[in-house]
């Protein structure tokens, strides 16, 4: 047992080093467990979904992915849950919890590959290319990125019509499942960038990433339009009911019932569907 223990100790001490090693050199294998909704979507986009065997709870796009079993919520993972899938590799974008999960998974000899796209469009495009290389679908990835770039250009140009006009104030409302509360999407993040391309202005000017929303904050932000992600919107069920949320009822958006529902996966990260999102949002903001 001593030898084994020493080996384990050595492995455990070296584990942080292995985090820096780029396991992308190894092929993904046929039992990929991916706990990032963005990466999962991209994998389907480049046609590599046959490699996947399990997902996390929040990966729900495209619909076909729902056939795969889940290993839980990506912020409440259990090592054994992942390992029981006997993955050839665990694929993440870095957004996982609890912190030690990746360590534990590595410690039993399973590769963990982290591809973090960051907050930029370029980062997302790079992610697509990397995934193309990783799964040996470079051509598909390249084609997709080209079409995506073209789509982005077109959508931004079309939305640029409204660049000079009055940019409506928009409040983007997300729902935090762990804290069970509504969050406002604040500066720095794909959502705001998408909004700006669509010709809107973020009603929240401070903070970074996400802030807890209070009725007062909502009222003070005084948005002309509210865009709510699916889970949060569905808790109220309809535009009229959502407009009755404390704080919302005091805003121009609430009074004019300019509340729109959007799928989280269409706004929280950049992807090939972003051009369509820009166009949709632009229509909501500017078609009266």
């Amino acid at each position, binding site marked *: *047992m001593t*030898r*084994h223990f020493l080996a*384990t100790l050595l492995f*455990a001490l070296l584990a*942080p080093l292995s*985090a820096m090693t780029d396991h992308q050199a190894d092929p993904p294998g046929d039992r990929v467990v991916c706990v990032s909704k963005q990466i999962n979507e991209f994998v389907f986009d480049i046609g590599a979904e046959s490699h996947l065997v399990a997902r996390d709870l929040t990966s729900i796009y495209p619909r076909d992915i729902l056939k795969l*079993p*889940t*290993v*839980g*919520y990506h*912020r*409440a*993972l*259990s*090592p*054994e*849950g*992942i*390992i*029981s*899938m*006997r993955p050839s590799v665990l694929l993440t974008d870095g*957004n996982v*919890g*609890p*912190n*030690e*999960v990746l*360590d*534990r998974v590595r*410690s*039993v*000899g*399973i590769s963990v590959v982290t591809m973090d796209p960051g907050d930029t469009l370029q980062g997302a495009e790079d992610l697509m290319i990397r995934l193309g290389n990783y799964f040996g679908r470079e051509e598909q990835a390249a084609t997709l990125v080209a079409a995506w770039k073209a789509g982005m250009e077109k959508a931004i140009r079309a939305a640029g019509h409204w660049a000079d006009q009055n940019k409506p104030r928009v409040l983007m409302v997300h729902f935090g499942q*762990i*804290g069970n509360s509504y969050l406002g999407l604040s500066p720095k993040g794909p959502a705001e960038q998408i909004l700006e391309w669509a010709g809107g202005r973020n009603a929240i000017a401070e903070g*970074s*990433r*996400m802030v*807890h929303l209070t009725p007062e904050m909502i009222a003070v932000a005084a948005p002309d339009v509210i865009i709510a992600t699916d889970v949060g919107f569905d808790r109220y069920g309809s535009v009229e009911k959502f407009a009755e949320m404390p704080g919302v009822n005091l805003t121009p958006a609430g009074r004019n019932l300019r509340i729109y529902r959007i799928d989280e996966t269409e706004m929280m990260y950049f992807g090939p569907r972003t051009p369509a999102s820009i166009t949709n949002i632009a229509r909501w903001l500017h078609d009266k």
Partner: protein
Amino acid sequence: MSALRQLPYRQIYLALMLLLAMSLIASASIGTIVFTPLDIATFLGEALGLSPTGPDVLNHNVFFLLRLPRVVLCGFTGATLGVSGTLMQGLFRNPIVEPGLTGTSAGAALGAAVVFVFGGTALSFASPLATAGVPLLAFACSFATTMIVYRLSTTFGRTEIFTLLLAGIAINAMCNAGTGFLSYIARDPQARNITFWNLGTFTTADWRGALVVATAFAACFMLALHHGKSLNALMLGEEDATYLGVEPDKLIFRLIVINTVMVSVATAMVGVIAFVGLVVPHLLRMIRSADYTFLIPASALLGALLMEIVDIVARLVIQPAELPIGIITALLGAPFFLWILILQRRAMGGSYG
């Protein structure tokens, strides 16, 4: 029940040890990945060098690196909480005392939360500093809060039990507010950890954590064992205990220190787990005796046993995800606690002092 009350203590210990052994085997087997007794025997054989490592390296690793440390950590945490509850109930001569009532658990949780939120990149999870930082700061905060509660309730060397309980409640409230505040202002990645902390989990158990908790428990348990007599004597009241050679103020201080070390180390590794310290001594009193020379060792055994059972449940209910332990202990512990209250009201003169 009355038949059990005639049994010598030794036989109860044996029965508990037997049940504990069974629960350890069950805990080692059951989970998202199931290990049959044959599997376990095979792995042990491989580890001892009796046979070469088979083809199933993955399961071998999962068993030794994830499952086994979890079983160990779980058992020692349960033992810690069980003994801690016993010590506290003996010290305060109040059966509704929890290890967390002196502000110990809440302080530990607050210390851990501070590391998560303010540790920043220096204490990101890959760094060895974090692995030491969390339990250290948890212990430091836990000790600080416990000492505050103790000092507030001790004047001229005499400790007022009632004041201690009230001060503990106040400090608990403050720590919970602090932890709540930290989780509120925390940037998202940090907040994930704090929520877990308040609910307790064995999900990410490893050998380091298991051995730290085991060591802290073993040391504190050895020290606590000697004080069974003194806790019995304390039942007579502080003055009569003094006549028997007990020094109540020294005793209280010593036991508070022992309790704090044990509980804060366990809380730093696992998070806050409630009700175990409340339920274990009660069950033992019902089964056999309120004699502290019996309760201290027995509560270690029963605490470990119950914790293993609860952890098995935590692993099974929402497979492959896991339920935080604190939720189950609260769900089971709270009704039990209410039941105790009802029974106590019915019992004739059922006061413990």
